[in-house]
């Protein structure tokens, strides 16, 4: 009787070990735990404490491994992934982004950083930097960047397409109307008022981000330099951002860097 139970327990333990040596996933971990727990019970039953303790230790180390894995998963996810992402927000902004690139920029900042908290200030500005350095409109680049951060390539494709779709459809309709009637809508007064609103929007975004990002005289210096060089010298975006990046590389090497 005892002999057969022992044999059974050994068998269970070995099987557990076999599974344990396979690539670890949620399923295999669960299986190993079950097998070893069963073996532990059987050893206890026949009074083999030393064997039981051995398996108990194995189980503990297994739990540790499991919790590490789960922790790591959560760490990855808690940035962005675990949060429910409502891709419609890109559609919403794609629909409502009237008033030029800076309006869209403000909407994106408001929606992604302040409301949905998908990106941090730093992430958002990083996306903007990439958008400035690489080709393509900055707003669309930020949308692509966000999508990629969320779900790699598939996320990037999704966010970009969803974002561009409203404009695409509207543009086709406008093109059809244009072909037929040769008209373009009158927009001057609307744009005047929109421009005024965008001024308020974009200044508020600038002030909010500036407050968070600028921590010392070096930051303030770069800010003033960027402001002046784009205002007075009319450097293009690439130059301003590139030079500021180089300045940052040199300035922040210092002790606190």
């Amino acid at each position, binding site marked *: 009787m005892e002999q057969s139970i022992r044999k059974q327990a050994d068998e269970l333990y070995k099987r557990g070990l076999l599974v344990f040596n396979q690539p670890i996933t949620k399923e295999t971990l669960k299986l190993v735990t079950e097998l070893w727990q069963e073996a532990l019970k059987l050893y206890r039953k026949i009074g083999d404490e030393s064997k039981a303790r051995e398996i108990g230790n194995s189980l503990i180390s297994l739990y540790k491994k499991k919790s590490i894995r789960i922790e790591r998963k959560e760490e990855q996810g808690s940035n962005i992934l675990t949060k429910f992402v409502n891709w419609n927000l890109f559609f919403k902004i794609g629909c409502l982004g009237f008033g030029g690139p800076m309006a869209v920029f403000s909407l994106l900042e408001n929606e992604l950083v302040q409301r949905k908290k998908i990106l941090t200030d730093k992430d958002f500005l990083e996306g903007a930097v990439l958008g400035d350095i690489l080709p393509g409109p900055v707003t669309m680049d930020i949308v692509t960047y966000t999508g990629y951060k969320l779900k790699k390539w598939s996320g990037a494709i999704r966010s970009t397409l969803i974002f561009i779709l409203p404009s695409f459809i509207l543009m086709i309709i406008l093109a059809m109307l244009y072909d037929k009637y040769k008209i373009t809508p009158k927009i001057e007064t609307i744009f005047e008022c929109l421009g005024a609103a965008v001024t308020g929007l974009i200044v508020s975004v600038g002030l909010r981000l500036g407050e968070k990002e600028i921590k010392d005289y070096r930051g303030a210096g770069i800010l003033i330099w960027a402001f002046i060089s784009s205002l007075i010298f009319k450097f293009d975006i690439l130059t301003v951002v590139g030079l500021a990046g180089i300045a940052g590389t040199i300035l922040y*090497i210092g002790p606190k860097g």
Partner: protein
Amino acid sequence: MDILLKLFWVFLKIGTFSFGGGMVIIPLVENEVVMKYGWLTKREFIDAVTLGQITPGPVVISATFIGYKVYGILGAIVSTVSVILPSFVMICLATQAIKKFQENKLLANFFRGARIAVIGMILQAGLSIGKSSLIDFKTIFIAGIALISLLKYKLNPIWILLGAGIVGLVS
């Protein structure tokens, strides 16, 4: 088919060189689309750009219009995809690379400086948009309300844009 390939190639080129986005690329597009291939007349091209500014998306969406004029819906799809494609791929690759070199101090510092420059340019954009659009009491009023309601009351900017658009429509 031949013309679709040409369309694809032209807008792929434009998409690749549209650094800084927006208006910068317009002369480039005009050169290709009006001068070189004669797909659009000059008048039509100007209208395409105007329409591109009306739509909520970026101005590159003018590519959709041009594509449509050249080859209908299919042309619109080809031109839009090809103008987006280069920046799309580059952004994805860059995001991937940044993640890989996260620990690199030099790169981190580069981005720290560059991020601040973006803020500086945001403020500069605010100033220059303001300079051209704050022209009377009404517009100054709108801008003031927008700024206060955003900073102090955290209002969703969509409402501000809608409100300003409506004021513009009725006035």
